[in-house]
Structures are given as structure tokens and as C-alpha cells.
């Protein structure tokens, strides 16, 4: 599919993502200005506060955005997932340039002019409002301009906490290795950043009083500015109405998923089945790391798909065991007592870690099991997703269990590992056993001959109070018990990752075929 075809087919979704993006940035900058400018003024009055507060804002900006989102999730009130968390993070990032430029701008006002103002008999607040702020405005607007451009960029990360925006396309594009999605997300956010920069540049030029030419006099510039302000105000209002929560009387369920295709697909299945039963669904898909779990425990998510092995090791911190029934029972019992969360019947397939090598390597070296690969590992580079690198049943335990040593271990995005393997950037990766591209890229799955990995049966996790509140949930989960085979799952994954089809369509067809 060409990029233009892609745009023609997806322009309405793209527009709504742009909308979300603009609204997030706009509101965040508004809040940051309301907080940052008075703070900056305060710092010009109390010199001793300047170091600590600017330092704090500085530190804030050095925290990687994904980490900042992570810190915010478990916090009450400002945390959780969705727009609010994203706004908090964006505001924190935007504060530094705004505060700093307010301080710089006001301190930069010609001391003679300030002294003249005081000597004329202006009160403190008159000096501030009539002299210092107007003269510092050019520098302050520069700060707002910098903050806005940064915020447009950081907002793309907000998709990881379910706040929407163009990051949705970028993350999805990375995961599905789809350049059209990546391009649409990245180009749009770049255009947004440039547009914001241009517009705020115009605003800024209104405040340069020292230039020889009378800038205020240019009619064209004034018209452009007026039009810009109008578009912002009207657009802001329309957009705000667009994202304002719609309240309805009917039952409402918030369905989440992790940030890979299969998880989003399983979530979409439940979402469509619920919608068919008149339940309104809020989709919080593609959440990174352990976000879905934390959000569900916090009560912002009702349900998300999970794997028993992941719950057993990564959430409950047990040492991996290989009996599927024992793992399932233990998880079911502990989730009920610890989190008030019910574990559904298994869906009928497993998605375990698959140690993958290239098909030609496997044939050339006659590799069948992971143990076969141990002697070759010292010459190999391995590529593992962040998740696999950090979890108890991941790389640390795995390499010890098999006595594996690699020439180099690279941590990378899970979705990139397959292509990295087939293009010989790395020689072994840990993929998902239901990944559709295993067949299409001619990759070979080494057997786990020491039965190191625990069973990863797919299940849905759902809050007990949600089951009581929305009876349709129980019916839907009962229908899906043992409803999906491994082959079906691989095919569904491939239709999305390989054929680049719309997940909603794929799920719709599948549900129809199954008669759900």
C-alpha cells in the first residue's frame, strides 16, 4: 500500500489522533503557563528560591518521558492511565522553559527603565504588570514556544499510557513494522511542531520593542495573528467538546491491552462482543509494561488479556514451574484474594517465549533445541525485548538455566526483533510463539528441551466488581473459554502484522465465522 493510499483510507482516524494530540498539547501548555509564569515572577522576587525551583524543574526535564509516565501511574488522583496522567507529565516537562524564560525575561528588563517606573510612583504590581511583564513578554513567549515544540514531541509518548494522540500510530507502526503508520504519525507530529513554532514566532515578534521598524504596524501580520487566535479558540472549543467524556446511562466497560498485536486483538474481541450486547466500551489499548495490571488494580481498567505464566512470575513473583494446571490454579486463587480480580477460563492457546533463529542457520547447524544452540552462542548476538530482559523468567533465569553466553546482548523493541533477526543484525531473539511472522520470515523456533519457561496460557483478567456491575461480561467470557486455537491465533496475528489489515475488521470477520 502506498503512503497516499494509506492516508486516503485512514484520514478520519488520523484526524482524530491529530485532534487528541493538539488538545493534549494545548491544555498542557495552558496549565503550564498559568503555573509557570507566576512561579517565574516569584523567583525574580525571592532570589533564594531560584536555585532550588529551577533545579527541580531541570531535573524534571531530564527524566525520560516513558519513565515519568511510569512514576505517575501508581499515584493516586494525578496518576492512573489516560489523559490526566499524560497532562500531568506534559505540564511537568513544559514548566522549565516557561519558568526559566519568565525569570530571564524579567531580570533582563533594563534596570534604568525599572528604576524609572519605581521612581514615577508605580506600585509593585503596577511595575510588574505595566512594565516588567510587557517588556519580558518576548522572552516569555520564546519559552512557551520551546515548551510547545517539546510538548508536541513528548505527547507522542503519551500513547503508551492510553492518552491517544499521534503516538498511537508511531507505536503501532513500530510494532507492526509498518512504515505508513510510522510516517503518518511522525510526519503529522513534525508538521504540528513546525506549525506551533511558526505561529508562536509571530506572537513573539509582536513584543520586540527595541527594533527600529514598527513591528506592531504590519497589518498582514496582525491579520495572520488574529486568524490564528480565532482558529485556536474555535478549534479548542470544538476539540474540547470532542474529547469531553460522554456520559451515558448504559453499562460501560473499560477494556485494556498490552502493547503488542495479540493483546490488542484479544481485547478487541471482547470489546466487539460487549458492544454487540449493548455495553459501551472504552478502549485503552496498547499500554506498555505492567501498566494494564496497575491500572486494573487501581480501578481504571475493568479487563485485559494476560498470560498465566506472566501473572505467575512477573506479577506474583513465583519461581517458574512447568505444570499448566498448577500455575493456573495458583494464579486464580491469588488474584482473587490479593486483587479482587477474577481469572477467566483459558482461551485455548499458549503464547510462550519462542527462542528463534534464522531457518538457514537452523538447517546448516542442525539446530533443534535450545541446548543445541549453546555451543554457538558465544559467536552470536542476541536481541531481546525490554520485557524479556527484565522479568524473572526472562533473560537472567533463562541464560542461567541453559548456561548460555552470547557475544553481545542487545535490548530492543520486541516488534523489531523479528526483522533484526532476519536481516542478520542479531542471531537469536526471544519472540512470541504465536507471532505470525515466524513463518513468513523463515524463522525457526528452538524447542525448550529443559522446560524452563512456565506455561503461558491466554486468559482474561477481570475485576470482580465489574462482573457484578456488567452481567454481559460473564456471558462473553464463558463463550470465549477454549474458543481460540494456537493456529487461529497465529493466523489472526499474521493478518494484522503481515497483511496490514485493520484489527477491527479482522476481529469482526472472525467473530462472524465463529458465530459469537
Amino acid at each position: 500500500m502506498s503512503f497516499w493510499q494509506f492516508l486516503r483510507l485512514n484520514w478520519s482516524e488520523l484526524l482524530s489522533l491529530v485532534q487528541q494530540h493538539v488538545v493534549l498539547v494545548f491544555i498542557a501548555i495552558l496549565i503550564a503557563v498559568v503555573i509557570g509564569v507566576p512561579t517565574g515572577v516569584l523567583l525574580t522576587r525571592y532570589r533564594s528560591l531560584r536555585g532550588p525551583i529551577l533545579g527541580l524543574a531541570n531535573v524534571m526535564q531530564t527524566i525520560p518521558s516513558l519513565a515519568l509516565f511510569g512514576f505517575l501511574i501508581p499515584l493516586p488522583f494525578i496518576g492512573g492511565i489516560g489523559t490526566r496522567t499524560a497532562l500531568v507529565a506534559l505540564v511537568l516537562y513544559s514548566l522549565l522553559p516557561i519558568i526559566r524564560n519568565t525569570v530571564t525575561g524579567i531580570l533582563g528588563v533594563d534596570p534604568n527603565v525599572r528604576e524609572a517606573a519605581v521612581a514615577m510612583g508605580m506600585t509593585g504590581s503596577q511595575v510588574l504588570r505595566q512594565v516588567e511583564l510587557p517588556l519580558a513578554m518576548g522572552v516569555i513567549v520564546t519559552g512557551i514556544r520551546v515548551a510547545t515544540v517539546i510538548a508536541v514531541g513528548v505527547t507522542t509518548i503519551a500513547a503508551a499510557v492510553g492518552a491517544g494522540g499521534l503516538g498511537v500510530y508511531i507505536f503501532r507502526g513500530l510494532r507492526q513494522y509498518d512504515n505508513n503508520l510510522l510516517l503518518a504519525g511522525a510526519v503529522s507530529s513534525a508538521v504540528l511542531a513546525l506549525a506551533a513554532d511558526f505561529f508562536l514566532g509571530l506572537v513573539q515578534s509582536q513584543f520586540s520593542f527595541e527594533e527600529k521598524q514598527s513591528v506592531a504596524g504590519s497589518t498582514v501580520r496582525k491579520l495572520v495573528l488574529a486568524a490564528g487566535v480565532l482558529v485556536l479558540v474555535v478549534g479548542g472549543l470544538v476539540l474540547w467538546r470532542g474529547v469531553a467524556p460522554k456520559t451515558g446511562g448504559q453499562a460501560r466497560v473499560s477494556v485494556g491491552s498490552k502493547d503488542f498485536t495479540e493483546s490488542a486483538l484479544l481485547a478487541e474481541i471482547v470489546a466487539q462482543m460487549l458492544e454487540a450486547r449493548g455495553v459501551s466500551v472504552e478502549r485503552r489499548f496498547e499500554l506498555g509494561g505492567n501498566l494494564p495490571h496497575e491500572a486494573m488494580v487501581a480501578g481504571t481498567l475493568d479487563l485485559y488479556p494476560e498470560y498465566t505464566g506472566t501473572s505467575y512470575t512477573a506479577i506474583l513473583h513465583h519461581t517458574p514451574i512447568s505444570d499448566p494446571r498448577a500455575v493456573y490454579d495458583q494464579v486464580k486463587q491469588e488474584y482473587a484474594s490479593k486483587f479482587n480480580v477474577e481469572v477467566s477460563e483459558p482461551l485455548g492457546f499458549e503464547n510462550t517465549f519462542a527462542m528463534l533463529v534464522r531457518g538457514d542457520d537452523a538447517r546448516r547447524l542442525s539446530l533443534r533445541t535450545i541446548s543445541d544452540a549453546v555451543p554457538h552462542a558465544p559467536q552470536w548476538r542476541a536481541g531481546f525485548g525490554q520485557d524479556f530482559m527484565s522479568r524473572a523468567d526472562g533473560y537472567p533465569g533463562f541464560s542461567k538455566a541453559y548456561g548460555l553466553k552470547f557475544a553481545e546482548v542487545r535490548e530492543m523493541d520486541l516488534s523489531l526483533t523479528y526483522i533484526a533477526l532476519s536481516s542478520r543484525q542479531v542471531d537469536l531473539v526471544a519472540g512470541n510463539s504465536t507471532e505470525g511472522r515466524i513463518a513468513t520470515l523463515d524463522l525457526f523456533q528452538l524447542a525448550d528441551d529443559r522446560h524452563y519457561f512456565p506455561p503461558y496460557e491466554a486468559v482474561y483478567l477481570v475485576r470482580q466488581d465489574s462482573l457484578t456491575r456488567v452481567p454481559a461480561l460473564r456471558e462473553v467470557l464463558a463463550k470465549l473459554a477454549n474458543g481460540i486455537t494456537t493456529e487461529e491465533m497465529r493466523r489472526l496475528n499474521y493478518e494484522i502484522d503481515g497483511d496490514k489489515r485493520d484489527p477491527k475488521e479482522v476481529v469482526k470477520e472472525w467473530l462472524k465465522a465463529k458465530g459469537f
Partner: protein
Amino acid sequence: MNDVADKALVEFHNVSFSLSGTNIITDLNLTVERGETLVLLGESGCGKTTTLKLVNRLFEPSGGEVRVEGKTTTSWDPIILRRRIGYVIQEGGLFPHFTIARNVGLVPALAGWEPKRINERVRELLSLVGLDPDRFAERYPRELSGGQRQRVGVARALAADPPLLLLDEPFGALDPLTRASLQREFADLTTRLGKTAILVTHDVREALILASRIGLMHKGRLLLLETPEQFLVSDHSQVRAYLETLELKGGDQ
């Protein structure tokens, strides 16, 4: 009323001022009579600008007291005190984001005058300092020459008809010709309006032209306070040093 009018407008009584441990003014005694133009003369750092700022309470004395209209500056409400004192600094200290009209009308506006009355006053003052109101009122300071800006600075200081003017090297940044004509005009103006003025300069020629009395300052102390006539014949070594520079300059011309 008479009681107040009889009193000296500004009095310094044993005033000292120090900033972070450094003495800037030491034991200053000085009286400024109504209607006179007192010129404080001295080299940079002698404390003459500080003396000015003690009058409108930009600084407060560390010791002694400064009285304006019989009342110590610290017992004045600083805002009211400053609005009764016109202040002119080098290059005018105009607000670059205000038009000339708004700059001149600032103090009346702060005092809450009607816009119409402010407008009339602004036109009157611009004419008084020799600037055509129709040409200059709506311009910005950056569009004016240094001399024009200085005239606006004087107009602004006169706006609310204050009894006292403080001028800090008002003509210092101007070329000699503009300076000479502005000095003459200023002398006429203060005489005509009956204003009291304290003017700070390092230019002995300016002091001789404008002053009714000259106060010579050195290292934070007032060395002497004389009329220009007495100043010219004084045998104080500092005065002789100043007058020699004058003769040297005169010889050049």
C-alpha cells in the same frame, strides 16, 4: 499653607548611607530652598546619584534623616512621595513599549486623571519641551533621537506638576550642541515654572550654567556648597582642579 511654604523643600540631616558594609554617603547636611536649582557636582562614585535616590526614597538613609516638605522620607508613603517628585535620568529612561503620549501621561494616569485631561496635559507638555504633539505623540521612543528622548523625559517628569524635580545626568549622553541648547531651555523652564530642582552632573560647565548653588561632592562627603560666583573664586584644591579642566577645554576652542 504658608507654614509649609516657608520650610525648605528638602533637608539632609547628618545623613549617612552604606550598602553591604561600604560607606557611600558620610554625614551629609544639606538644605534645598524652594525655587532653586541645586547642582551636585562630582566624579563617578562620589555618591551624588545616591543622594538623589535618598530624596525619593529609592534608598533609605542608614543614619540621620532626609526630610521632604518637612516630613522624613521614611514617614511618607513612598508611592505618594514619588508621584510628587519628577525624576529624569540619562537617556530619559522611557518605557520602550509605551508611545510618547503614554510615557508623558504616565503619572497623571497613575493618579487617575480623566483620559481627556491627560491628553490635554500631554500636548501642553510636549509643546513646552519643544516637541510638536501632532508629530510625536503616537511615536515610540526608539523612533526618536537622543535629544528628543531627553525632552520627553523632562516632559514626563513635569506631567503631574510636581514641586520638585530630580535630574540624574540628564544631558550626559547628548552631543555638545544639543546639550547646550537643552541646558538653556531647561534653565528657562525651571525659572518660568518656579520649579525646585536637584541636578547631578560631573560636568562643571553644566553646573555653572544651571546652578543657583553648587554642591561639590567627593568620596561620599559634601566638600562645599557655594553659589557659582563663589565657586569660581574658591581656592579649595578640588575646585581649582575642576576649573583647570574648564580652562584647558576653553583653550582648545
